[in-house]
């Protein structure tokens, strides 16, 4: 991020302006990625008219950076109509797409409309590796062809790779591909639980040992010693710092109009179909609560050695059950980085340890009749010892 952009973000924070918004136009998708957190059925997406009205309200509220994402944005037949209107309102537009539906004509139109950047998901440098994750044969070939079309138009493209157990050995290949295509490359080891709370896809998450290796790879980390150094003790300034920009200068709107602090923070703050965007932004009780939280207010993290340097995501913490609690995935990253366990990980370890034998519990068993024992399903061996 440029210094000027950072300054503008700070000014937006002082002025209470929603500087950056992600709007998901649809949850429908033409890929079926193994790690995806979305329900791809259409449960009543906003219409073109509703989205245009929302964009007008966002412009009036001062939104500058608008990220259009999904699902797959090109699944909407009215995508270019929406994009054209958004550009009339002079948003800085970033797109997130799998690019499967982008050919020369679409790339040229994106260029004409002055889109700032296009992020394309690529999960492997090998066609079979990528297609195994998207579950669509030929998706790698089409996405890579699309990146070439976009580059031929002079557009800025970023390849985004999600690191997980399925593609652990493939990330170097994606980096090589990005270099060959002349595009930027980002690698993110975050797996997000399903929006309905189902956490089973977290089984795909990279383990601590894999993260440990990744965080020491100079191809990704410019200064490994600094990155992996033990954290400095949190000072007064860091205790008063904000957890992240979610709800402060940024927010998210779903295809159904639900307003959340962030795409990764499914705490509903209102619905833009029922309320004006700016009214939710200014008056939502949920957002007011989020804005009141400082590091010092976090139950475990305020006492943790990683407090001032951790990348704790309040949305992931919320999905674990407490927006003021720790995000275990980020605790694991801090541990993999420094070798120092977080307060949360230490507490989990203590809880997970087998309890010492409580002989006194066994001593009371003889006072219970045999029939009652069988009635509560305690095996006879437990009594015998």
């Amino acid at each position, binding site marked *: 991020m440029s210094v*000027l952009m950072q300054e*503008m973000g700070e000014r937006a924070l002082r*002025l209470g302006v929603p500087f950056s918004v992600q709007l998901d136009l649809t949850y429908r998708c033409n890929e079926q990625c193994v790690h995806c957190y979305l329900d791809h059925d259409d449960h009543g997406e906003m219409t073109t008219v509703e989205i245009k009205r929302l964009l007008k309200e966002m412009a009036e509220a001062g939104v*500058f950076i608008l990220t259009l994402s999904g699902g797959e944005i090109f699944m909407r037949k009215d995508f270019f109509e929406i994009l054209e209107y958004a550009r*009339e309102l002079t*948003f800085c537009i970033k797109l997130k797409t799998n690019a499967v539906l982008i050919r020369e004509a679409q790339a040229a139109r994106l260029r004409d409309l*002055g889109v*700032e950047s296009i992020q394309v998901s690529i999960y492997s440098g090998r066609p079979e590796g990528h297609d195994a994750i998207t579950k669509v044969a030929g998706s790698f070939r089409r996405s890579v062809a699309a990146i070439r079309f976009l580059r031929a138009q002079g557009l800025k493209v970023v390849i985004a790779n999600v690191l997980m157990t399925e593609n652990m050995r493939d990330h170097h290949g994606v980096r090589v591909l990005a270099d060959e295509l002349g595009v930027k490359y980002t690698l993110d080891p975050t797996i997000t639980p399903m929006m309905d709370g189902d956490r089973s896809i977290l089984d795909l998450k990279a383990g601590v040992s894999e993260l440990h290796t990744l965080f020491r790879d100079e191809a990704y980390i410019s200064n490994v010693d600094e990155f992996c150094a033990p954290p400095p003790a949190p000072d007064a300034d860091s205790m008063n710092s904000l957890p992240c920009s979610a709800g402060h200068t940024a927010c998210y709107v779903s295809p159904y109009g639900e307003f959340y602090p962030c795409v990764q923070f499914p705490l509903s703050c209102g619905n833009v179909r029922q309320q004006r965007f700016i009214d939710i932004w200014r008056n939502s009780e949920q957002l007011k609560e989020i804005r009141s939280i400082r590091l010092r207010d976090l139950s475990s993290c305020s006492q943790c050695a990683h407090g001032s340097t951790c990348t704790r995501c309040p949305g992931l913490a919320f999905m674990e059950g407490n927006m003021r609690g720790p995000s275990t995935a980020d605790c694991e990253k801090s541990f993999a980085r420094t070798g120092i366990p977080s307060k949360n990980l230490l507490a989990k370890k203590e809880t997970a340890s087998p309890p010492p034998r409580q002989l006194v519990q066994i001593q009371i068993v003889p006072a219970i009749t045999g029939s009652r024992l069988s009635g509560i399903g305690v095996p006879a061996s437990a009594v015998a010892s």
Partner: protein
Amino acid sequence: MSKKVYVARSPRIAARMLGEEMLVMSAQGSTLFTLNPTATVLWQAADGATPLDEIVESRICSEFEVKPEEAMRDAEALAADLAKHGILLISEEPIPSKSPVQEQHRP
């Protein structure tokens, strides 16, 4: 008689008022600029149809305490600078609007 100069906002920029300043990002190189109040007035008035000298007279001299000759010199230099960064288009003919940038929203 000197030729008229017309200025128009580039259709390939993003822009928004943030406080008292106009934020402008050029798609060309994703470069971010902030415009001061005078530059903001000029940029907002750059509709491709109004000559620069009329913008200076009607918008800049009326809003800022500045002599017309001095304002015109500054406006020409500013327009050239903005054009160099792809933010403004300059022509000796009226510039038809490609992308209808209707208004700049102020929060």
